[in-house]
């Protein structure tokens, strides 16, 4: 069942299955309530199905709530009750996830490093993918992000962040908040989630767009599962990159 799920996983069809390099960094950008955490959890589940250890750091939800996210997304992903097989698979992959939560004000690189060392030094958990949900990219974010990339590289892991876009913050022509300009170059992949009427669209920017990989996709809003599709954004909302299929330029400028 696991192999079947990996074979048919939507991520494969839109090249999100390619892992980031060690120390690499990805971002999921969207306004509140659009589906950043759900997307992050989908990424985690995909890695967990491959047997990779995932450390999920949440700065706004308690452990139980995060755990519930995973349960719900897993059930949506499987969609069919396979009875014992499903239950066994769920129990198997749970061992590949560790949830760490901090209050927003209490999260810092030194504290995080200490907690991470607690895990690795005891041989309890060695994450290959570190997710950080709820980090605020404010002043000084560049140094912090560099430090986190270093830390994750030392662990042999890659990083994904959720990035909240506030409606009042000005954005560039690609919809990326201006206040993130200084750190964009540190991201290897960026997924922009946007509501377009009843549909939820995902645009891939940065590395993926540079290399002409599928640039947009639609999410099922009820399950938040990716469905494979082409450039189905209305023309007036497509970026320069989307309109030009040979775009290899600096898509993050």
């Amino acid at each position, binding site marked *: 069942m696991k192999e079947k799920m990996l074979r048919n996983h939507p991520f494969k069809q839109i090249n999100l299955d390619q892992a980031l390099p060690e120390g690499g960094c990805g971002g999921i950008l969207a306004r509140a309530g659009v589906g950043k955490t759900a997307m992050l959890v989908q990424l985690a589940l995909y890695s967990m199905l491959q047997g990779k250890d995932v450390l999920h750091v949440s700065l706004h939800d308690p452990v*139980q709530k995060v*755990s519930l996210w995973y349960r719900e997304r897993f059930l949506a992903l499987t969609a069919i009750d396979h009875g*014992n097989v499903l239950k066994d698979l769920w129990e198997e992959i749970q061992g590949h996830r560790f*949830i760490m939560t*901090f209050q927003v004000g209490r999260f810092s690189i030194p504290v995080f490093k200490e907690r991470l060392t607690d895990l690795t030094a*005891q041989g309890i958990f060695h994450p290959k993918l570190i997710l950080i949900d709820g980090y605020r990219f404010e002043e000084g974010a560049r140094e912090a992000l560099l430090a986190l990339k270093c830390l994750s590289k030392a662990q042999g892991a890659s990083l994904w962040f959720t990035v909240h876009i506030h409606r009042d913050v000005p954005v560039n022509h690609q919809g990326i908040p201006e206040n993130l300009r200084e750190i964009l170059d540190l991201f290897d992949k960026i997924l922009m989630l946007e509501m377009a009427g009843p549909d939820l669209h995902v645009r891939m920017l940065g590395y993926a767009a540079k290399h002409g990989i599928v640039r947009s996709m639609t999410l099922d809003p009820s399950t938040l599962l990716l469905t494979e599709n082409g450039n189905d954004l209305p023309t007036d909302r497509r970026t320069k990159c989307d309109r030009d299929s040979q775009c290899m330029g600096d898509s993050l400028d």
Partner: protein
Amino acid sequence: MGSGLSKVRNIGISAHIDSGKTTLTERILFYTKRIHAIHEVKGKDGIGATMDSMELERERGITIASAATFCEWRGYEINIIDTPGHVDFTIEVERSLRVLDGAILVLCAVGGVQSQSVTVDQQMKRYAVPCIAFVNKLDRSGANPDRVVEQLRSKLAHNAVALQIPIGLEGNFTGVVDIVSMKAFYFEGPHGESVREDVIPGALFSDVVKAREILIDKASMFSDELMEAVLEGREIPEAMILSALRRGTMARQITPVFMGSAYKNKGIQLLLDGVTALLPSPDEVVGEALDLDHDERAVPLFCDPQKPVVALAFKLEEGPYGQLTYIRVYQGTLAKGVTIVNSRTGRKVKVGRVIRMHADQMEDIEAIPAGYIAALFGIECASGDTFVAPGLNFAMTSIHVPTPVISLAINPQDSKSQVNMGKALNRFTKEDPTFRAHVDEETNETIIEGMGELHLEVYIERMRREYGAEVSVGQPRVAYRETITRRADFNYIHKKQTGGAGQYGRVAGYMEPYEDGDFLFIDEVKGGAIPTQYIAACEKGFRSCLAKGPKLEFPITGIRIVINDGSSHAIDSSDIAFQAASRGAFLEGYAKARPVIQEPIMKVAVETPTEFQGGVMGLLNQRRGMIIGAQDEGIQSVIEAEVPLAEMFGFSTVLRSATQGKAQFTMEFSHYRQVPASIAEKIAGEAANRKRSAA
């Protein structure tokens, strides 16, 4: 019992261990003049808090059995049940919540929402009990009521709103500002019994105004009148805010938060005002029963003393004068001398003495009207039984009872202890459905079962103190189970036709894993292949195999059995023949269905200073624990894990030494999971040894 139901409150006080519930109750009884002296829970005066009437409770500083009492506050009658916070005594909390109309959720201002707070909150949700919160221990170092209110929102998803702001904190805590009335309150006198109103301290005024805006904003969702007043910018009277809050609280859509320090005698009187203003009276709570004469259709109950009586027995206690049955009357009046019927057994009983309880002291009364809680003497029943007027056949919804997960063999030291042990077990098992006892047929040992080590320890200690029964204790045993993991067919003939009366039956079908319960039997036999009159015998035969698995003799669960074919003999088929055929079919199918052993997995939450987090995770890891996550909460962390119960024995000692005694943990049953192959072999070996030594 005559102030009118609108002025009655039946409430429970629930929380995590050491949040201060018992101290709070003690203070409530003092301020309502029910008692005239205050004694601390672990008091130097050797007396202990009034509600902890058992010696063991006083000694350990924990509350074990729930105790009921009533008091009066400003014309209101308040019935309080004090309940234990430790997860091993969850059944007591469950019972109380089933019969109460409202609850106070006590939270420690330092610890905040802790693991057992979550369990208690879930129990309150299960029985739809409205609650208000009390943030206690504001006098302690590290007290942070804002954080606790935020945790109520984030961890328990409550729409929590503070009704007060503290005046000072920790050592400087002197009083509270009530945001509704916009006044400051100070608690003076040797025991805080004099409440002085004053103006709000200037330094706090802007905080109070902000908090009031938030409060009114939230409360206005429950009152059009309040909403209009806000929109029109009119002055908002206190009564309008309280009325809106009451509506929201009763609908469980909002949780008002009070604060104070029971130990320092601050804030309790205002909390009592909150209870009367915000929690429902018995006639505001919808009661329902099941009509057993009409397919268990739900029927409403009316909190009307004139209607036919319907009452629920929710606690039994064996005392020096006989069995005391705590009872809540939902409809009608339960008076001395009337005849009532136990709807479970159908037996009629005549009501003897009717008692109103105050911890361990009793007061005789004439009757219990609808909406009240009291106790009866001399009624034989089980906890959870419904009593009704003759002519009614109703049952209240059964109280949810968790299955025991741990057992222990106990051996009396001498013959006197043997007799007394029997009496003790008889009493304890009647009082507490999660505590069970039986004699193991093979080893002849007495086995007790419960919800955790502490649960069993307490009963063993009570046996010794209350009955003089000295017992030695064996190794704790885990309640393993067996189940199957794949579908398997069976087709079994039971035949004994060697002359004379014979037996014949053939049963065919399949068995497969079943997630939604312990056992499901489905009859898909067509064309009378098995005569209809023998189908029940087939089911009986299959069921009889569930008690003990063929190899390891653990109970079997999670099986669906479908019979779809068979055959019978005109003369030799009988119930007995088909029972035997079904047993044979079960064994045949079971062997092919890849049976496995399952063990109970416990949800463990360890609260520890952050400096010990790594060590604690290591300890859990060593015990085959799967760590779900770690919650950093400043100086403390909470590590959540799922650990097999078999690995948890002695954990408290190990944890204590690894953390200098600063960590504590709670544990409750989560689910059953298949044991790893190596452990399965070990269990099989132990089972075989036990069989050999029994033989």
